[in-house]
């Protein structure tokens, strides 16, 4: 795709000081090579004058070939032809008889002259060609290196601002220009990043319009193009096949960009476009995932609330309407049954509301621990008393060692944890079975465990049961919000403890949680007891 017709000797982004110098003619630029060739001609002539007799005319002709070959290798076709002509004339005048005349006695010397010219042309051409190839290779290498460095620089970037910064810095460095990257923000283009002097040099209404135009039309605009040629900057759309993502503005140091420079800029913006697209797609995917997640949680919440509220509501309304509408039909015992179910339903709704409130508090990050010194035995005692209605069908076995350390916790929240764990144990284990509640003290923490004799959970569920709204699939028709254990985890973690579950070897589930003991602060049960009492 690259057309190097206008490729000039020193015009390369690498040597940016000399770029865009198409108009400088060869004789200005290569003066020194020309002068040196001419000096060589003069030297050869002087050498010949001194040792001409010894060397012979033929060898002198050979020596005159040296400046010709040098000139053609260094300068290309036209200048080397001129040097060849100068050499031929010098040879003719100074050495070919008659000496000091342009005329030639022996016509065979014309062949020598012709060979001179052919050598000059051929060598000059080959040299031109080689030089061209070399420049082409150099240009490709520069381009590849620039692209490689940019690609490597952008590959690990995950933040759009940083990406814009890197693109601008890199393009600015590679091309030694002032660069700005425009990205769309709501409904207009905004500069996402710019090299230091860009805004001072360029920003004006024309340039903004040129950038907008380039963005809308996905074409180049600004200086050197048909669209907004009055702008100071050159604007390239940053685009992929499907969409235009932004605009790269470049301020040429001198007048215009060469096609190669434009080509390199295009390649660089193409790379930037891919990196930007990658980030945008990643962000979109993230947003979609977050949306799906919150959607999933919301529907899970609605499902569980509506179920958990409606079930007790149904039993309350059913019982109440029976009592209100047909009170006479029921005997005292039946009435008492209905009233009990009303009470149970109301208590259940109260628990659900309590759990929802706890969840909301934990979620909002608003949870403030009202910690105070607590005796875990005391908390367990209160929990058992508060929940005696639901625990009466199970045998509760409590084992707490004597003289256990006090802990500094939020009493009500730890009570909530124990309540939720006891409710689960009751729900998932058969009536009449044993629920074991035990406390152990380690060096810097208390370990509280609640074990039931239910079916336990699948090994894969041991971790997941603490997820919000996660409910066990297996045991049929046990209702719940799926909030209880996730609340427990939230509370325990807020206390810098940990909570986990595992199946017991003999069957049933064992839930453990730990609470830190502040050894520095805590007064041991045994230590100061007698002393203080006297």
């Amino acid at each position, binding site marked *: 795709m690259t057309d190097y017709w206008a490729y000039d000797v020193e015009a390369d982004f690498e040597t940016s000081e000399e770029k865009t110098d198409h108009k400088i003619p060869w004789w200005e630029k290569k003066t020194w090579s020309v002068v040196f060739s001419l000096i060589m001609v003069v030297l050869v002539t002087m050498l010949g004058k001194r040792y001409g007799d010894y060397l012979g005319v033929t060898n002198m002709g050979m020596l005159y070939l040296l400046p010709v070959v040098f000139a053609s290798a260094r300068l290309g076709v036209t200048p080397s032809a001129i040097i060849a002509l100068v050499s031929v004339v010098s040879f003719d005048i100074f050495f070919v008889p008659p000496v000091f005349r342009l005329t030639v006695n022996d016509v065979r010397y014309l062949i020598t002259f012709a060979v001179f010219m052919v050598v000059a042309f051929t060598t000059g051409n080959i040299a031109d060609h080689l030089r061209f190839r070399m420049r082409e290779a150099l240009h490709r290498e520069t381009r590849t290196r620039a692209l490689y460095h940019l690609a490597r620089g952008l590959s690990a970037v995950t933040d759009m601002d940083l990406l814009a910064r890197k693109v601008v810095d890199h393009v600015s460095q590679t091309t030694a220009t002032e660069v700005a990257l425009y990205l769309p923000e709501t409904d207009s283009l905004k500069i996402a990043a710019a090299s230091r002097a860009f805004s001072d040099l360029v920003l004006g209404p024309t340039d903004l319009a040129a950038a907008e135009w380039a963005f809308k039309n996905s074409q180049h605009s600004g200086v050197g193009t048909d669209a907004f040629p009055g702008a100071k900057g050159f604007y390239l759309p940053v685009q992929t096949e499907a969409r235009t993502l932004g605009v790269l503005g470049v301020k040429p140091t001198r007048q215009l960009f060469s096609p190669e420079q434009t080509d390199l800029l295009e390649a660089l913006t193409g790379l930037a476009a891919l990196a930007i697209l990658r980030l945008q797609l990643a962000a979109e995917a993230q947003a979609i995932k977050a949306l799906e997640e919150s959607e999933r949680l919301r529907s899970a919440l609605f499902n569980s609330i509506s179920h958990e509220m409606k079930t007790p509501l149904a039993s309350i309304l059913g019982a109440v309407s029976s009592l209100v509408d047909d009170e006479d039909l029921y005997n005292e015992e039946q009435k008492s049954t209905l009233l009990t179910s009303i009470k149970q339903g*109301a208590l259940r709704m*109260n628990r659900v509301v*309590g759990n929802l*409130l706890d969840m909301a508090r934990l979620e909002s990050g608003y949870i403030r621990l*009202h910690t*105070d*010194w*607590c*005796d875990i*035995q*005391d*908390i*367990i*005692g*209160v929990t*058992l*008393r508060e929940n005696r209605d639901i625990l009466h069908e199970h045998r509760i076995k*409590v084992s*707490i060692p004597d003289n256990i350390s*006090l802990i500094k916790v939020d*009493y*009500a929240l730890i*009570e909530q944890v124990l309540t939720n764990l006891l409710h689960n144990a009751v729900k998932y284990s058969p009536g009449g079975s044993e629920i074991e509640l035990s406390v152990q003290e380690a060096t810097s923490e208390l370990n509280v465990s609640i074990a039931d004799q239910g079916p336990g959970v699948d090994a894969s569920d041991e971790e997941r049961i603490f997820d919000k709204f996660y409910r066990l699939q297996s045991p049929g028709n046990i209702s719940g919000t799926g909030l209880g254990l996730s609340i427990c985890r939230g509370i325990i973690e807020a206390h810098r403890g940990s909570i986990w579950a595992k199946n017991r070897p003999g069957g049933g589930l064992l839930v453990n949680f730990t609470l830190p003991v502040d050894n520095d*602060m*805590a*007064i041991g*049960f045994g230590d*100061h*007891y007698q002393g*203080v*009492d*006297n």
Partner: protein
Amino acid sequence: MTMGAKILVIDDEVEIRRLLKVGLTAHGYDFIEAANGKDGIVQAATLRPDIVVLDMGLPDLEGLSVVSEIREWSQVPIIILSVRGQEQDKVKALDLGADDYLTKPFSMSELMARIRVALRHQGNIKDEPVIQIGELFADLSRRQVKMTGNEVHLTPIEYDLLKILLTNAGKVVTHGYLLTSIWGGDSQEYSQYLRIYISHLRKKIELDPNQPRIILTEPGVGYRLAVV
């Protein structure tokens, strides 16, 4: 016993007032009501109720300021109604002079028990030296405590603690009250001692210290000696 006692209910919820009216009149009490704090204070001043039942979540005045205003001129027992999670407010209300509290939702029987206890303490009959609560027998005049007939040996602080709880039987006693009564201050250190002494006391007088029946904990507030 004190049938016909006048009870003022200050609560902005119509449903709660209606429910309490049914329950209280059925138990033979005179029922007076107020829908907001200002009315409540006026009613308390003009109608001189025997008990005030006050909701903490009033729209106009905070429950706390109603308590302190009534306490400026009256020692009428005040029972606070609050929701779960308002422990700090409960403690503040008790410090300001409220006598007891109930956490919503509560049962009618719990409220009746609180009212009975409040009326009894209002009658200033606390100087009765011999107290029998379930298996626990205490003769304060002789510093003697017996559990299922066997004498229990208490350290001086354990005895003081039990005595305070016994003389306030059925009524909540805050941590702060116990700490200042026994140690004269409520520092962190004493706060820990209080937990430890209660634990020891329970081991001596409770049948199952893991599930106490006599000294009940009121989470975040204090303790209450159960009236069986």
